[in-house]
């Protein structure tokens, strides 16, 4: 088992907003910050566009982790999209917590200028998920 974890490369699905976190990821790239290549980013126009069902669906489909990124509260391109997103994510995490799934989900506010933060969060998250091991849902017949 430990051995399997050693060679395990987690698949992380990232939902990032177009204006801040996606631009932050872009900055991390253009400024040649190194971070693990485990994340697959899905760009949304706003973190408020995130239907919590997206997160449930990717987790049940076997993603090892889910990352949700948005503008810092108060800095949303659409003024208040991330305020609504924050309430939804809080509710979703409360539900996920009941089933021990919240460890696989991480949400962060990352602005367009925070390439450093994006790279750091990615690194931390890849390590955390590696410790957790693969999502048991991956091989289940659901």
């Amino acid at each position, binding site marked *: 088992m430990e051995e399997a974890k050693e060679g395990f490369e987690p698949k992380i699905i990232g939902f990032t907003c177009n204006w801040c976190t996606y631009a932050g990821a872009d900055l991390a790239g253009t400024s040649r910050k190194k971070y693990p290549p485990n994340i697959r980013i899905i760009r949304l126009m706003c973190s408020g566009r995130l239907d*919590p*069902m997206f997160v*449930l*669906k990717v987790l*049940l*489909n*076997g993603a090892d982790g889910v990352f949700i990124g948005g503008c810092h*509260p*108060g800095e949303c391109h659409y003024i*208040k999209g991330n*305020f*609504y997103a*924050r*309430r*939804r*994510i*809080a*509710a*979703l*995490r*409360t*539900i996920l917590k*009941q*089933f*021990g*799934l919240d460890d696989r989900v*991480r*949400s*962060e506010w990352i602005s367009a200028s925070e390439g450093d933060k994006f790279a750091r969060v990615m690194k931390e998250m890849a390590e955390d998920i590696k410790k957790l091991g693969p999502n*048991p*849902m991956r091989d*289940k*017949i*659901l």
Partner: protein
Amino acid sequence: MKGTELKQEDLEGLFKGLLDKKAVDCLVLPHKVGNNVAYMLVKDGDKIESPAASAIFAPSFGVNAANIVKGWTIPERVGIVAKPCEIRAAIELIKLKQMDKESVLLISADCSGAFTNQDYADHAGEIGDWVDSAKINELKGKGIAIREACAICENRLADVGDIIIERVDGGKVLVAGITDMGDEALSSTELSLEDKDVERQAEKEKIAADAKKEKEELPKMSSVEELEEFLRDCIACKNCRDMCPVCYCKECFFEQPLGKPVGGDLLNLAELRSAIGVPTNQLLYHLTRIYHVCTTCVGCGACEDACPKDIPLTRLYPLIAKKVQEIFEYVPGEDAEEPLPFITYEEEELEDKLR
């Protein structure tokens, strides 16, 4: 609040008065059908059966009455006489814009907890029409228990809606309006109203404390594997959704191609995952539904009653919804003017709940 004390047998006079004086155009209220209790929609006051009180306080739960008036957007006003959980669901539906506040008159009646429709019909003689907590404990000793949703319910006293019907000492009832609409409706019936203030805080706290104790004794799930096992018998009939008073989408996601794949879509999924369970999406369905009702779930337990496979859904929906409602300090069905948690926000909040 303004109200009056009535004898139980005067209740049908009150309902007749509401209809005759056009305070409401029609009335949804329970009536006796053989041994059991069901709802009827009454236009003519003469059809109200006597004694009305025996059906109103009968501890039987069949369908959530809010479901009957869901989508009531016509100007004709309907009155609903029901248990507090049903009135709370109706208030959530008003907030969800599924009915018009002006066209429903909500009348809540005290409840001590209810039996399933079937249990009540089977033991109607023993249970009777008017139970209190002592009687419920006595029946529990005989193996006739109230529904799990009722055992963990903290809001059994009538304190929501436009008009409340409280049970007071001596087998009497106190009828009082708690909103302007309720006051207007009551005064139109020519009852002599006076200022009434009944202090029930102690009783309320006792009910809540007992309910919390019951809740702690329920088995809890802690992993998704346990949830899978819990839902093992689910046949994805979605009756829990259909009978849920606060599930209201015109077209549910799980009736659409992505939520309910058929034919080629189903085959593609099987190819993607090598094998999939069919009917599909039970886990996703229930997890998504928990999220959809997490702020509005009134904990009435209609989902559990509706389940043909007897899955104890009270341990899933109301229990988890309550946890979400706690983080927003929200109690569903308190006040039709209070915004739903997901359509409002504070600029600084909840950061500790995000990681």
